[in-house]
């Protein structure tokens, strides 16, 4: 079993900066991510000035990277069971940092299971991975600040953006814009996005009520106020802002709310030696994640002057997180038809869930959330649609190989 001073789960901006700051203070760090490379979902493969130094620093002999590696179980006595495509490991930590990031909230709507319908960040991730997008007609819909950079990204890669349909009203978006005034870098970013999207129709207060097509998406039906209209497109990128990935924190027994891991101002969770940073603390974006990466390293190494410095920075960035949540965190849901699929893995419809009392009965009676994604899509969706809370998180956190689970035998008395 390998042992580390600090294990960081998640190699996005928060995790990378924590790793860099800890390694430069002499700590031996393991950085785990289920993706093939560091950078996080949004910034992977992007040459961003803010994160390049931290990415380069991952070459440090003090940092061991575990890519394509999923956490299968969190164990007592400060150990993790992890699995990659080749083998499995038990890793021991003195301190654990949860930098598990966020995923898109994908809400059911008629036709959302058709090939050609992706998340917003989802389409960006696929295009980064090599999916051709040139000359494809794309409608971007839903809500969230992610819409803008992704629209710019897709257009730069040759996509034809048919329209951006944002749920929020224009006054609400303007209010959010005013918050940005305190963040000069964000203002310039916003101006840059606007300049690069000249000519793209932008529609506020616009809700997707159906995605049309038979074997793949061919269009989208949108409601705006009292009238409806149809747009023709090849791809529909639709997402409803982000939700933090909380399963690892919950598996460890940390207190959480639906929006965040509960932490102190010094990033400590309710479990000793376990910290949470970045989107896991609530959706705050890149600069917030970077600041918390620095802060957690200072906290673990008891570097008091650095703690004071980064705490102020985190407080400033977290104010923006509050504005983001107030604007985008409670997306409207379109009334669903009976036959609309809610759980994509098990093809459970809205009608089938009408008699379920809660998430647990939906799982037991209808198999909602029991498929390969383990409720990662429909769990957050049913929380929004029906107000269901999450169930207890149990290992394995992801589908795992038998050989991986067999490793537990070596420490079977430790398994919770």
């Amino acid at each position, binding site marked *: 079993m390998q042992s580390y001073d600090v294990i960081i789960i998640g190699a996005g901006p928060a995790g990378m900066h924590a790793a860099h700051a800890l390694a430069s203070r002499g700590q031996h760090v393991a950085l785990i991510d*289920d*993706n*093939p490379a560091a950078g996080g*979902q949004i910034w992977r493969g992007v040459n961003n000035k803010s994160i390049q130094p931290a990415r380069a620093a991952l070459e440090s002999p003090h940092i061991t990277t575990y890519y*394509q590696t999923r956490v299968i179980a969190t164990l007592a006595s400060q150990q993790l069971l992890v699995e990659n*495509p080749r083998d499995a490991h038990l890793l021991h930590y003195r301190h654990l940092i949860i930098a598990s990031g966020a*995923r*898109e909230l*994908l809400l059911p709507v008629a036709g959302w*299971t*058709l*090939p*050609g*319908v*992706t*998340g917003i*960040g*989802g*389409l*960006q*991730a*696929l295009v980064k*991975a*090599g*999916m*051709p997008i040139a000359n494809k007609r794309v409608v971007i819909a839903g809500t969230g600040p992610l819409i803008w950079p992704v629209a710019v990204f897709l257009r730069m890669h040759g996509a034809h953006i048919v329209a951006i349909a944002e749920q929020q009203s224009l006054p609400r978006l303007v209010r959010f814009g005013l918050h940005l005034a305190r963040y000069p870098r964000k203002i310039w970013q916003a101006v840059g996005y606007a300049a690069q999207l000249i000519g793209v129709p932008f529609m506020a207060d616009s809700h997707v009520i159906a995605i049309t097509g038979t*074997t*793949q998406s061919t269009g989208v039906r949108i409601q705006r106020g009292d009238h409806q209209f149809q747009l023709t497109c*090849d*791809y529909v990128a639709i997402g409803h802002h982000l939700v933090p990935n909380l399963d690892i924190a919950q598996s460890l027994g940390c207190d959480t709310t639906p929006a965040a891991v509960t932490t102190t101002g010094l990033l400590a969770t309710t479990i000793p030696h376990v910290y949470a940073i970045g989107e896991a603390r609530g959706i705050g974006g890149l600069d917030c994640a970077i600041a918390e990466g620095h802060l957690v390293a200072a906290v673990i190494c008891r570097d008091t002057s650095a703690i004071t410095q980064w705490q102020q920075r985190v407080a400033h960035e977290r104010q923006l997180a509050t504005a983001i949540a107030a604007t985008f965190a409670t997306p409207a849901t379109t009334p669903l038809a009976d036959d609309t*699929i809610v759980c*994509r*893995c*098990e*093809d459970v419809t809205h009608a089938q869930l009408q008699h379920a009392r809660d998430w647990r009965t939906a799982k037991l009676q209808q198999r909602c959330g029991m*498929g*390969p*994604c383990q409720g*990662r*899509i429909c769990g957050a969706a049913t929380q929004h649609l029906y107000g269901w809370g999450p169930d207890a998180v149990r290992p394995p956190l992801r*589908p795992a190989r038998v050989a991986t689970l067999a490793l537990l035998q070596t420490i079977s008395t430790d398994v919770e």
Partner: protein
Amino acid sequence: MATLTVFINNRSYTCDASTTVAGAITQATPQLSATRQSVRDMPRTMVCGMGICFECRVTINGAAHQLACQTPVASGMRITYGEGGDAKL
């Protein structure tokens, strides 16, 4: 740019060596189309691009239910889906 050859449903394709299986599949087909059938036989393919939704699972070198979006391509890799490919799960 370095390239390599993979086999998608037994046909060879040359793709960018830095892509994922999802990238290779989308380069080999002109439009995103089904890479699996759901339990009710509905067409499905990649959605989240981030290893969360499990919709992109295909068979890679004989191993079923591998995530196309999380798997880098390798020379000679055999990717199958649809008829004779991934079983329903």
